[in-house]
């Protein structure tokens, strides 16, 4: 007796998993990650806060309630009032305007240094992990020696050597901040270069540069994005450190760190001068850390169902 073996398609039709709405929606890794990110409450709050400061920063480039540098707008050290919602500082400058301007500096330095440091770290990490041998020894030695000195010292002396413009500050921070990224990318590359798809690419004669850019880099992008996100708050704190020590963006630029240390002199009679930039800075850093935590959970493959 011959049995009729149903074809796969027939089984599929029977089970109603072919055609129409039954097919599971096609999602890419990144769409999936984005969906999980937007379901994470802290990450969303973080993004809202970052968005708020980004808008503030952009607005501050064209408009602030008062000029950030204009002095003697009223009684110095006076607290919050209707005309000056965050009060005036020791030179009678409007603190709200200066906090807004500070957002522009903090985010430019934070995002700028994160991008530059990531670029340096990714390139050196890829080279060390892919070519191994002497290249790796050299780059790893550079990393290990740099880890042996507090990065703040290196940044401080660089600023003294190359000057205190905002681009120089970004450069000085980047030169100390790429180490973690290079280590991460090196580790990822070491693991990925042994995978079958890289071998397949190499066997059909793909050039090294293309293997690195098309096959290895995209597969390491998840952890890279997370690391780059964490680099932003780290760079913002770093810029504040430099400004505190008097080696940040030169005055009268309203850097949050500078504002805080200027207010420190009068912390007993006018704590609002110190508190305003400190609150803005801590909020921004907190928001980026929340976003980074959210991204990590959303992208980490071990968390996937």
């Amino acid at each position, binding site marked *: 007796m011959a049995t009729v073996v149903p074809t796969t398609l027939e089984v599929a039709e029977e089970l109603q998993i072919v055609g129409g709405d039954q097919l599971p929606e096609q999602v890419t890794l990144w769409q999936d990650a984005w969906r999980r990110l937007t379901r994470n409450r802290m990450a969303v709050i973080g993004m809202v806060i970052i968005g708020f400061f980004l808008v503030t920063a952009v607005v501050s480039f064209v408009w602030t309630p008062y000029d950030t540098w204009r002095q003697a707008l009223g009684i110095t050290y006076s607290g919050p009032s209707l005309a000056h919602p965050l009060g005036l500082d020791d030179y009678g400058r409007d603190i709200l305007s200066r906090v807004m301007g500070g957002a522009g500096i903090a985010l430019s330095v934070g995002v700028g240094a994160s991008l530059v440091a990531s670029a340096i770290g990714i390139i050196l990490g890829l080279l060390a992990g892919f070519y191994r041998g002497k290249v790796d020894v050299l780059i790893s030695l550079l990393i290990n020696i740099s880890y042996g000195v507090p990065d703040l010292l290196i940044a401080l002396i660089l600023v003294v050597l190359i000057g205190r413009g905002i681009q120089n500050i970004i450069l000085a921070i980047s030169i100390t901040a790429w180490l973690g990224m290079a280590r991460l990318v090196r580790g990822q590359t070491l693991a990925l270069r042994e995978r079958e798809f890289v071998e397949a690419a190499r066997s059909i004669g793909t050039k090294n540069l293309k293997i690195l850019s098309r096959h290895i880099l995209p597969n390491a992008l998840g952890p890279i994005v997370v690391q780059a996100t964490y680099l932003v708050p780290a760079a913002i704190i770093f810029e504040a450190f430099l400004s505190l020590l008097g080696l940040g963006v030169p005055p009268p630029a309203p850097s949050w760190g500078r504002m805080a240390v200027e207010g420190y002199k009068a912390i007993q009679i006018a704590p609002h001068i110190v508190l305003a930039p400190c609150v803005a800075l801590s909020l921004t850093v907190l928001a980026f*850390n929340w976003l980074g935590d959210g991204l990590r959970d959303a992208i980490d493959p071990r968390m996937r169902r």
Partner: protein
Amino acid sequence: MFPRREVTRGTLVYAFQRLVLITFTAVVVSSIVFIGVHQLPGNAFASEHRATAGTEAALLHHYHLDLPWPQQYVLWLEGLAHGDLGESLVNLGTQITPLLLREVKVSVTLGLAAVLVTIGVGMSLGVLAAIRQNTWVDYTASTAAVIGYSVPSFVWAFLLILLTVSGFYAWTGGAIYEDIGWGKIEQIPVPALALGLPYAAIVARLTRASMLEVIRQDYVRTAWAKGLSARVVILRHALRNALIPVATILGPLVTGIITGSVVIEYLFGIPGLGQEFVTSILSRDYNIVIGVFTFYAALVGLANLTVDLLYPLLDPRIRY
């Protein structure tokens, strides 16, 4: 609490290798700074002192600055081999090595106090959060941890100064208030807290995560089943193993605290290495700057070595 471990030959060899590496790093780092600084245009006395040509030449000769830099470098290396870092460019006659040795003691005291804060506060919060998982204690401690590490040390410094100086002064009518500075025991806790709290938050997060993993393991259930008291189960059995992953971040943490101390020393007027670095870099006293780099490289290396040597005490599976 810890099992007795004897110092093995392997440990000694390992420590020796690391010491060689630390010395190498310190020499390389300070050499890079030395060479970099000596490429700068002009000299230390050209404009500021308005010296006559004769005194300027005498000063340059005194500091060997009239020699080509490779020769100066060799002289400096010879000094370094004898532990002599040279003389301050700003304060004529001030020997740098004894000055920095005095200051490194201050920095190490502050740093150790900060490490105590970090471990004490961080571990307690982490353990509390873990054993009360998913209760308000856990949520409060976990939220405090994220906020804690987002607030940088200098903001903690300002908040603590507001509390202990202005706050205490106002509330007690001037009877109790913190006297910012250095030299008395009671002046240590406030800067140590400011320095340690951001890192305490990181330790708390890690301790919580690793405690949660450990307290679900069989041997902990056995300990409960034997009828041991909660204190013994949590502190003796669970915490000891939970600390192993936490110990891995002690190295970066110590480096972070050393970096943070530069800012904290500056804000609190503490006469340590960090404060010295900032003043000497602002007054362009490059001899001291180079010396501070040498000291810091040695300090970071020795701190990390100490952490690594303590590690086998925590995890007997690790041997060098």
